[in-house]
């Protein structure tokens, strides 16, 4: 009997350690177009047979999402995007959480004991690495941004660029109306855009694309929509790989690791989209290998 009790305790310890039988709630934001790809990546990691973890998906915009989430009692909640993050943060007080969205480490200040972050923010270094594969000869890369939001990233990116033999020329702007004016004397090979609420506004994006097209300067956007709208290249995280990163963080927490011990995770793989019509208009020749490796090619 005593040996049986010991065996049961041992088994439950093993179950607790592996997370067998636990449920992970994944709450998606409607506005996050890549959410399904990320979920696929999460499932690839978490739903491996040996983990025993099951995934439950929720939509943050569903009227009963909060109540359903509370009733479900998951071991961990994964929030994909801002709406999901806001909802989960407001509705659950003590559940550990992994959040996937465009964010800086500073955005998790005060909640890092409970929330582990896997950002969608592709570092400038990674963007430049991707870009040099597509346009190997570039030397002067412009980056337009609001210093209040992205100065640290740009500084870090400038260092990385320097190591790659590229000069990162910064164009800081403080208001959306200053965007095109700020680029009026840009002597650059390519303009790199980064996620920034001052710059990445519809009218400003349109103005940038038209202004740069007139100056025959290619633009590198932050998502496939930019390439569709007239950017030569758009670099975004590899969402499937990002999902894996989220899944791994989630699994570590389920296995018993403390949330605060999990470091802020950046994307390590990128995907890019090309607009060959823009390339043709700008007189830029894109090599076939770059075209073949692109996740999507527009303007064919």
């Amino acid at each position, binding site marked *: 009997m005593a040996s049986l009790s010991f065996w049961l305790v041992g088994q439950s310890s093993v179950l607790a350690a592996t997370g067998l039988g636990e449920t992970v709630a994944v709450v998606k934001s409607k506005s996050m177009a890549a959410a399904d790809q990320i979920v696929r990546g999460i499932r690839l990691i978490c739903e491996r047979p040996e983990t025993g973890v099951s995934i439950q998906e929720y939509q943050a915009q569903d009227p009963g999402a909060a109540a359903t989430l509370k009733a479900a009692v998951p071991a961990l909640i994964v929030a994909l995007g801002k709406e999901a993050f806001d909802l989960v943060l407001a509705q659950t007080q003590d559940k550990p959480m992994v959040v996937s969205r465009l*964010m800086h480490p500073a955005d998790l200040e005060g909640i890092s004991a409970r929330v582990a972050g896997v950002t969608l923010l592709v570092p400038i270094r990674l963007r430049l690495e991707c870009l040099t594969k597509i346009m190997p000869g570039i030397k002067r890369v412009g980056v337009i941004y609001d210093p209040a939001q992205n100065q640290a990233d740009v500084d870090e990116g400038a260092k990385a660029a320097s190591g790659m033999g590229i000069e990162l020329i910064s164009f800081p702007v403080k208001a959306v*109306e200053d965007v095109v004016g700020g680029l009026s004397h840009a002597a650059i090979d390519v303009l790199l855009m980064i996620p920034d609420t001052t710059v990445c*506004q519809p009218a400003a994006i349109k103005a940038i694309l038209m202004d740069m097209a007139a100056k025959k300067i290619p633009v590198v956007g932050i998502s496939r929509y930019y390439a569709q709208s007239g950017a030569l290249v758009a670099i975004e995280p590899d969402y499937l790989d990002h999902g894996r990163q989220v899944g791994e963080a989630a699994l570590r927490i389920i296995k018993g690791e403390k949330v605060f011990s999990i470091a802020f995770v950046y994307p390590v793989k990128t995907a890019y989209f090309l607009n060959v019509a823009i390339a043709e208009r700008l007189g830029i020749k894109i090599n076939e290998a770059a075209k073949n490796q692109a996740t999507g090619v527009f303007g064919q």
Partner: protein
Amino acid sequence: MRISIATKVIVFTAVQVIFFTFVLGWYFVAQETLEARASLTKLGSTLSKNLARQSEWLIVSRDREGLRRLLSGVLESGPDIVYAAVKSRNGDILASVGQEAHSSDVQEFGHVVNTRVAQSVDETVDMTAESGGRQEPIGWVSLYISLASVKKRMDDIKNMAFGAVFLIIVVAIQSSFAFTKFFIVMPLRPLLKGIESIIKGDITYKISRPPKDEFGDIAISFNVMVKSLETTYVSRDYLGNILHSVAGALMVLSPEGVILMVNRAAMEFLGYSQDELLGQSLPALLAEPAAAGDYLQDKKNVFLAFLTKEGKRIGSAFSVAAMKDESGALTGYVILARGALIK
């Protein structure tokens, strides 16, 4: 003061027509004014809204030349647009065309220029799509539209309405005049002619082809009345012939003794004509007037002495018969000479 039916009808119609046409004219002008103003407001609002939409990225890109070209296009799109301007969020004029004028002849339309702004960095990923973010003001567009053409249009409408009212009044008066003449005055004429004929003693007048309306009913009634009168007149003549054929003098008196009827013999007896005798009082013809009351009794025989026209005294035995109606009330006397005249 005699006012004819035609005048009354025309005045009545004219007053009504003037009142209603003025009310309708006023309503029409008021409606047109409202519509013109609403149309102008809609035009101004639509133009300024479109201009604001098209200015969005030009403001963002601070493309003053592009804005000026856009405004020039707006100015050329309508002769009534006299001024157009685009201002920044701070109120600085980025571009303007035309002459800015503040007067009652110009109406200003404005619209805020908004741009969609991502509320979080997450939204910047697909901000090229037409969704997400919130609208934030980045500028203002102003359009000044001249009211000259609207005012001219209103003047034209007022003139047209006044002309129409005047025309309607003239036509209505003419119509009422013609209506009165053809449907009231003309049907009344044969009726009036018939009445005049009867007054003159012609009781044979008939209204031929009476109209098929109320006047026709009156004409038919008139013809029936004439026929009845004709019958009555024939009876009266028949009675008169009987009276005149009586050999003795005969007089019919009222209860007061006034002569109502005499026969030829009585006229010859007294020497008066019929016209002279009718209406005369019996005592005035008697030789002894004071005794007249005594004679006017229901008596078989009484001797009466008269004074002829020539002043001669003449007498005879008369039979006096009192006439009574069905209730027994006295209605008059019949005096008939029974014997020879005594001079």
